């Protein structure tokens, strides 16, 4: 199950729409996909899925418990 937040920085303006559409095509779809222009002219895309439940993130479950 995909969860949490993903941030992609340094996206050129010409690639923003394509990348946004690719993220929107994931299943389950993200709750939001938002691109913000940075001072250097590039864009940062923030993709938000449902939050990972506390204490059950991928990292901990893969580690097999503490």
């Amino acid at each position, binding site marked *: 199950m995909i969860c949490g937040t993903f941030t992609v920085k340094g996206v050129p303006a010409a690639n923003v729409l394509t990348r946004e559409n690719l*993220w929107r095509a994931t299943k389950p779809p993200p709750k939001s996909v938002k691109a913000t222009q940075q001072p250097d002219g590039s864009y940062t895309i923030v993709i938000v899925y449902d939050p990972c439940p506390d204490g059950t993130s991928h*990292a901990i479950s893969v580690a097999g418990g503490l």
Partner: protein
Amino acid sequence: MTGRYHSFPRLMTLLWVVGIAASVAGCGRTLVFAERDGVNLAIRANASSSPPIEVNFGLNRTIATIVPPAGENGGKPSGEAVNMFAGFQVEQPTSPDPKKPLDVDVKIDTQFASGAAAQKVAGNPTVVARIVNVGGTLATFSNSPSTVQLVAWLNPGGTVSQNRMDKLQAWLSQNYPTLNIPAPLILDDVAGANYEAVRIAALGDPVLMTVPK
């Protein structure tokens, strides 16, 4: 682990507990892990500007973790508890009330893996990055030939192929079961993760590459 910052007395309690832990940890090969961060509170008022008041809040947080050895053998420490990865993030979940700029909740998320868990994931940079980067995964745009080729494959005719996206996600789950990431993430670069190798592997899979749009 998730917590909420409340007050200075609570921090003192934490330091007291750490002190007690230090006294019982012994003098063996003990891991001592510490974090220290800054705090800032700046209020700027200028009636001629908009907004007239700006408040900048930062947090000072000190964490000390003492992990004793897993066991002892002949008076010497043995075991592998001396491994740890950790990270934390401070965030403001809700927008502050403009009338009460200082009345805000600050959420602190922190997570760590120690001992056998840390040792188990030490060879998996993706998992380590997820432990350390509490706030999520940070990727940097890639324009490598493999990325360009994979993006073109996912966008035949300039439109996203849902079928190919689904198949790429399934291919990832089958070939990289521990990654558990959205397929578009492999198009970019993530510190500690070699997604270039994943992209090349995908492009080299004749079954995947012949998936119709």
